[in-house]
């Protein structure tokens, strides 16, 4: 039996995002951020439902969606695991998101009056923390 990875998730009620989406987005963020690694075991449906005080059916549906989208992998009799992450966005979508993110970032820093080199160095430094992660 694998010990399952702690899932540091929080859900809020009253949010326009339904709980099932909050769970899905939360897990995606943990995987993308490296807090959850490929091969890590996820909590049982019941365990996570209890942790979050939500209906187990909601957790089961969120898990099923993540599995269908390739974020998680189900192994018969063993439970769910974080799948090896592959690039799942189209090139056009990646390009669009990158443009969006750069626009936002430039908008935020433009008023701070740093020379471009300083800003670029900082970004490069920040990115280097993630360079050990796969680049496929």
């Amino acid at each position, binding site marked *: 039996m694998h010990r399952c990875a702690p899932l540091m998730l929080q859900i809020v*009620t*009253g949010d*326009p995002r*339904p709980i099932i989406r909050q769970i899905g987005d939360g897990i995606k963020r943990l995987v993308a951020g490296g807090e959850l690694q490929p091969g890590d075991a996820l909590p049982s449906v*019941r365990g996570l439902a209890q942790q*979050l*005080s*939500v*209906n*187990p059916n909601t957790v089961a549906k969120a898990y099923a969606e993540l599995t269908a989208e390739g974020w998680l992998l189900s192994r018969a009799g063993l439970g769910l695991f974080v799948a090896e992450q592959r690039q799942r966005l189209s090139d056009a979508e990646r390009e669009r998101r990158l443009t969006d993110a750069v626009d936002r970032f430039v908008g935020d820093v433009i008023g701070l009056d740093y020379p471009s080199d300083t800003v670029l160095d900082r970004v490069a430094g920040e990115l280097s923390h993630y360079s050990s992660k796969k680049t496929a």
Partner: protein
Amino acid sequence: MSDYVIDTDGLCLRYKGKLALDRLSLRLPRGGIHAFVGANGAGKSSLFRVLLGFEPPSAGSARVLGHDCRRLTPALRGRIGFVNEEHTLPGWMRVRELMRMQQRHYTQAGGGLWNDARYEEVLSHFNVLPDQRVVQLSRGERAGLNLALALAQGPELLILDEPTLGLDVVAKRAFLEAMLQASIDDGSTIVYCSHQMDEIERVADNLVILERGQLRYMSGPDDFCGRVQLWVVEFPFKAPELRDLPGVLQVQQLDGLTHVVTFDQQDGAGFEARLKLLGARRVQSMPLGLDRAVNAFLSHGHAGARRAA
């Protein structure tokens, strides 16, 4: 075995001179947690009274677990649990005696479903001692005892009328967990009426909205939220009358902007075009959480809102 735990057809109940249930037709599938919401006086408690056989229907039919509610046998009643909102329990009995009595009843009637562990688990969150008399308990403690008894009974259908009213946060969470457990482990169908939208969002599989004795809406809470949309509209001059547009639930004027909540208008383009035709300069829209969505849905037909309109 009937597929529906509750099945009413054209059900009417005249209660104290008012039509408390007005041709209510409701079919509730077996399994899961069904949350009933509705304004005060929407007919929730009246429906429960009919279902449990306390009150014969004035017209129409009502069936529970496949049987006519006017002729419930003791054995059938043993398969139904009920917790009323006042948590009425015999005040003169000691907690232990009351528990033993319930245990005896439901072991005989339901075929030994009584779950001692669940009784202890739920009650452990309340400071209730076996030797105390019921009359000595606070309202919250009485609620805890009542819920522990009902959940331990392991009923096929459990009807809870505002069970968490007056519980503190710890007790409430313990109760919700026990309720989820009963739903998943025992396969109990739970009918649960509440005004607490945050609870409903967490636990309910199905949302049932009653209004003035009629069924207004039924689906999963997420699907319901997906159909309600908030529009914030800027009209450069006086805002036109929007209440009569299709799907409009609620209209509010806030700081010169018009806030409109709609139902089934989220395909967007159509409703936005309509607002533009009416002279809107800017239109923005966003989804709403369950609390606001239900609020808008109910306020549409609410006695107070109608009078103001």
